[in-house]
């Protein structure tokens, strides 16, 4: 309660009101542009928009499960970013997490072990990327992108060659029943248990970032490496911690996908492909904050599923759905851009007043 009170003291109510108006305005603008685009392209705009924005809610379980994975890859991007690193490798960390947890599940049949192994594999990959950066000066963007592809093909190779299911050769051997995460049912509503589990991971991330020395070191180092050094914190160590944490959550994304949703990996990785990159958008939209990421992941999930259902119903190409989602996401960034322009103009005015 006192926390809320002091929060309100720092932020005046009118400021909140302005923000709400800005957000609503930009959503309306985004929907307006998207609708006119559909109209121009010759699709039924009303039906299209209804499906794009509403399609996700026809199956709430799917909406939340889908959000689970990009929530985790969102953390995989946002935590390293706090330490000043661009982890583009959420994709690869997810593959390796999925692969290792699948293999662990197959060989041991132990759920907990498989989940931990998946996370640990992602962590190890993150550690590797961070070590390359800190000790060898290899840019993390380059190494993580290259590792994405290495792991993409390695996983496909292992699935098609060794671990394929003889009955369905385009799929891997299934996760044994003993190692599967199932459903919980609330008043008859069946929900994949991975969503509540991911919320636990979100809380874990929040705790580590905002309530531990490690989190403090990560945040302080990212904001000002010089000040961190002065305060006896170690920005390089912070990078390693942050990449380990990010990699861990990337690995967890893959593990939850395999152990709790698909129960296998297909030979083209279609169930995971692209989710690491979606995580970047999720993290940015959630302003890098774990709680913000929960909401932005659900929002992204809504647009992704809505886009798919619109595609099918209107017989529209995939690009149209992507373009529309893009327009709406960009519109949401408008208040931020608008504030930046305002402060830029204010600075300009001050300077010109000062010198003339």
């Amino acid at each position: 309660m006192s926390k809320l009170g002091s929060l309100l003291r720092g932020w005046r109510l009118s400021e909140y009101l302005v923000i709400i108006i800005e957000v609503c305005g930009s959503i309306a603008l985004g929907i307006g542009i998207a609708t006119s685009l559909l109209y121009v392209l010759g699709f039924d705009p009303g039906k299209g928009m209804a499906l794009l924005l509403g399609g996700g809610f026809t199956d709430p379980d799917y909406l939340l499960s889908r959000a689970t994975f990009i929530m985790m890859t969102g953390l995989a991007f946002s935590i390293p970013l706090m330490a000043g690193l661009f982890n583009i490798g959420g994709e690869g960390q997810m593959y390796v997490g999925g692969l290792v947890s699948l293999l662990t599940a197959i060989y041991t049949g132990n759920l907990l072990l498989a989940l931990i192994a998946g996370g640990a594999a992602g962590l190890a990959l993150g550690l590797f990327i961070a070590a390359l950066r800190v000790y060898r000066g290899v840019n993390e963007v380059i190494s993580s992108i290259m590792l994405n592809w290495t792991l993409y093909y390695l996983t496909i190779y292992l699935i098609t060659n060794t671990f394929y299911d003889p009955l369905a050769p385009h799929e891997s051997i299934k996760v044994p029943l003993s190692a599967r995460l199932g459903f919980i049912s609330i008043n008859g509503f069946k929900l994949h248990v991975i969503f509540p589990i991911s919320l636990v991971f979100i809380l874990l991330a929040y705790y580590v970032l905002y309530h531990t020395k490690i989190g403090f070191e990560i945040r302080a180092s990212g904001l000002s490496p010089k000040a961190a050094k002065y305060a006896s914190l170690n920005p390089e160590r912070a990078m390693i911690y942050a990449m380990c944490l990010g990699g861990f959550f990337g690995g967890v994304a893959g593990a939850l996908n395999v152990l709790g949703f698909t129960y296998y990996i297909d030979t083209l990785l279609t169930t995971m492909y692209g989710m690491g990159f979606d995580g970047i958008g999720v993290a940015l939209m959630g302003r890098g904050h774990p709680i913000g990421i929960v909401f932005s992941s659900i929002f992204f999930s809504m647009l992704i599923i809505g886009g798919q259902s619109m595609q099918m119903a209107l017989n529209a190409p995939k690009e149209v759905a992507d373009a529309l989602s893009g327009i709406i996401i960009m519109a949401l960034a408008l208040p931020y851009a608008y504030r930046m322009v305002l402060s830029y103009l204010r600075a300009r005015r001050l300077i010109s007043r000062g010198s003339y």
Partner: protein
Amino acid sequence: MSELAVEMRNVWKVYPDGTIALRGVDFTVNKGEIHGLLGENGAGKTTLMRILYGEIRPSKGLIKVFGKRVNFKGPWDAVKTGIGMVYQHFSLIPSFTVLENLYLSLTSLKRNISLDYVRKLAEEIMSKVGFDIPLDAKVEDLAIGVQQRVEILKTLMRDARVIILDEPTSVLTPIEVEELFKTLTRLKKLGITIIFISHKLKEVKRVTDRITVLRRGKVVGVVNTKDVNEVDLARMMVGREVFLKLKKTLVSPKESILAIENLWVRDDRGLDAVRGISLILRKGEILGIAGIQGNGQKELAEAIAGLRPVIKGRILLENEDITNLPPYLRYRKGLSYIPDSRSIGLILDLNVVSNSILTRLRDFVGRGTSILWGKAREFAGSLTRRFNVIVESLNTPVKYLSGGNQQKLMVGREVATLPKVIVASEPTHGLDVSATEYIRSLLIKLRDMGVAILLISSDLDEILQLSDRIAVIYEGRIMAIGKPQDFTLEKLGLLMGGVKVE
């Protein structure tokens, strides 16, 4: 008799935050002379020259170059008028060859030129001024003095007739300085006008024809170099009319607590910045290190705080060797450091609570590794109350605090636990009068409580007001050490400018 190359009349510069850098400066340079521009830090030398080079615009004032009124929109206009600038930090691309660098700087003026043309032009000018720069060598392989010559060549190739050199000797070795002076004399013979910015009295006296002295944004004198000696220049540079007296009791010397023995430290470029300094700091005294910025003060402070490796020598705290201890262990032993910049001592995007525990995080970590935010809030609250930090809420990011409040928070945090030794670097830099007075009296109060304070400041008023002993630093060496009454302003000025006095 002589024509004016540069004429600046009644130039004012007021920055948006209200700082007045120049207060009606008149500055004239004759054609073909070497003109020295002398002054302490913050006197306005660089601001004045940046205005002449079109980098910043004056708030008011008239500028004429070779008799023609100019109104520069940017450095490109100044370059076209024949003004060249050589910065203290060069603007060359290290991995490019000299020729490529020259080509780059010329293409911005003339399109469609070939490398061969640039080579021919460069060789022509080099033979005229007596340079011998290997055009095909990479810049990063060249000595600093040669790189500086590349910069001079660059300005000449752009037809500069007035060359501004900003503290050109600060990066050079003594031999390179001699070479530079020869070059300057040669350029003068070719009819090129040179403006030489410096605070080194000896060099200004040696190489210039006339000197303009700036102090606090005003011209205090324009003199012919041959009519003055270094003592006159020093008096003009630092001369002060008033200084505020703070109440200060006399101290009797107590036992020493911090000893520095023959300390050698390098700067970021790998050059020796501190060259064999030995000092002793006693309990309950303020030892002021006076000097012009960039003479090794920062490196000295960082070496004591443990942020910069020591090349040679020892640092002893209460007779214990701490030379190789990490910073937090020194902190624990009672040595705290107030850095010269708030952007180093604080993390501006974090809130007051986080910044209050920044350097003492270990005291606020509970079981495991979790931070005790409740305890941290209490501490932040007591800090803000004790040190009069005005904040709207403890959750406010410190970037929204005024400079004075930020400084009070930072200083307060460092002195709150009553350390044994405080290294304070420019503790009142950029503060208004009341915040300055607050911090200064706080330092004296701490001294009276027995804390030993090493005060590093380029503000002479501050040094004279607070110090029980003064040491003057110049080019990484202590020029002299003694009681404040042993120094006259004149003597301090001479020592800070590198002139030994008896």
